[in-house]
């Protein structure tokens, strides 16, 4: 008996330790970037373009570029993803068709981000002749986050009690109106959470935009969706690997990394808190 409890204690110790180490890894990384980056992040850093061949100045064009790309991506992916999820949860009946669609969604979720980049290059940039542009990049990112949105929307739709649908249908309300007036509004908070997480994901991705949208350096802000843009993740990559002044621009790299994780983790945290509030408030 003693041995059995000893073994249990040992195992629990290991389990706790692994959870602790994961937490520390996250906190450690955040703290490290914060400590090294906070001095670089000034008002000017956030509002000025880079100067002196990107060894001084700020990152404003990269912030704006990331903003355009993510907003574009979510604007495309959200309606498509929600419509897809509505079909899967509300209309589809079990069968081979639905099985194929599910496998399709799962496989799309597993496609490596660099392959999305290649696809974006081959399809949007070359075939559709959008060039390397906000449009190409945003569409590529939209496909990347589509499975995330579908998954979150499906979960939110499934969480709407069946009784709501029955009540509405029993009143002689048509299926579509039941969905649009009752089911979707009830699922809205969950769908929004998924959308916000999708935004976070899109904002942090580098590989899909490398060949489809991201510019090494542009001093001016984009004028149309056919312009190239700078983006925060790509900017970090460029500063950290491709410059001739890698050591000299370290503070800028830390600062940009801090801004990026501040943005991405802030978005994620917002979504997580929103979700837990919604769950707590839910009355059904």
């Amino acid at each position, binding site marked *: 008996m003693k041995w059995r409890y000893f073994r249990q204690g040992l195992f629990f110790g290991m389990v706790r330790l692994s959870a602790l180490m994961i937490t520390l890894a996250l906190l450690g990384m955040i703290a490290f970037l914060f400590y090294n980056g906070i001095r670089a992040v000034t008002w000017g850093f956030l509002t000025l373009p880079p100067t002196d061949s990107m060894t001084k100045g700020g990152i404003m064009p990269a912030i704006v570029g990331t903003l355009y790309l993510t907003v574009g991506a979510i604007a495309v992916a959200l309606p498509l993803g929600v419509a897809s999820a509505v079909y899967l949860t509300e209309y589809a009946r079990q069968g081979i068709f639905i099985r194929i669609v599910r496998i399709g969604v799962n496989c799309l979720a597993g496609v490596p981000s660099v392959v999305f980049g290649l696809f974006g290059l081959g399809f949007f940039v070359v075939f559709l002749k959008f060039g390397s542009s906000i449009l190409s990049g945003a569409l590529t990112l939209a496909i990347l986050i589509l499975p995330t949105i579908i998954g979150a929307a499906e979960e939110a739709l499934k969480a709407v009690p069946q009784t709501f649908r*029955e009540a509405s249908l029993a009143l002689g309300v048509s*299926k579509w109106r039941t969905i649009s007036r009752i089911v979707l509004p009830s699922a809205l908070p969950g769908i929004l959470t998924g959308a916000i997480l999708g935004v976070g994901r899109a904002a942090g991705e580098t590989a899909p935009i490398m060949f489809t949208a991201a510019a090494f350096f542009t001093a001016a802000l984009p004028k149309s969706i056919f312009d190239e843009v700078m983006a925060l993740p790509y900017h970090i990559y460029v500063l950290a690997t491709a410059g001739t002044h890698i050591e000299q621009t370290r503070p800028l790299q830390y600062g940009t990394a801090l801004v990026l994780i501040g943005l991405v983790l802030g978005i994620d945290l917002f979504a997580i808190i929103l979700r837990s509030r919604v769950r707590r408030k839910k009355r059904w």
Partner: protein
Amino acid sequence: MIITTQNVNFFYGACQALSNVTLDFEKNRVTALIGPSGCGKSTLLRLLNRMNDLIDGTRVEGEILFEGRNIYAPDVDPVEIRQRIGMVFQKPNPFPKSIVSNITFAPRLSGVRDGGELDALVEESLKQAVLWDEVKDILDKSAMNLSGGQQQRLCIARALAMKPDVLLMDEPTSALDPISTAKIEELIDTLKKRYTIIIVTHNMQQAARVSEFTGFFYLGKLIEFSSTDKIFTNPDVKQTEDYITGRFG
């Protein structure tokens, strides 16, 4: 005779839930369907407004005539049927909206836009459901704040706002306390002057109290159908008597 079922069989996949049910429901009367759980009484009720359409892999045979028309004919729109045959469920299921929005939800969608007309409809429906006095000052508050019994009466009012001809009630009091149950039963008594009511219940006293006709179901078959008095005092079939007197079920 407002609804008639003729030789109705119903299947969930390979499993037969109803066999050969033939039954007449009279206009402006309360008909109760009783029987042990799983006997098919709720299934039959949900067939009457085509709610079973929503379940995958089900199949109906036979005819269900509503005012002489087979509601399972290919050219019939289930939405239209449900507008005329309302339903109240076992658990109160108000929408997470205000009391007013719950009542006006369906009428608005079927084209009632006029504010005054909608206000009148809200008041009338809530009065019919004997809920008006309790909620008239909190009409814009969420329906989720009401008690279970109030919610169920709101659901009844919501169904009545569509001005249906028939009201189906699927064990409407099984989730409620005795006081709320008594209120709903009283309500059924006043509603039958204007509506045909079909109620499924596992509570035999309730069937005896509220209904004029009773059908007893067992294992997917209609065992006996007659006036409530006769069923409860002098049933023809031994199985019915055994169930009524509590010998099984």
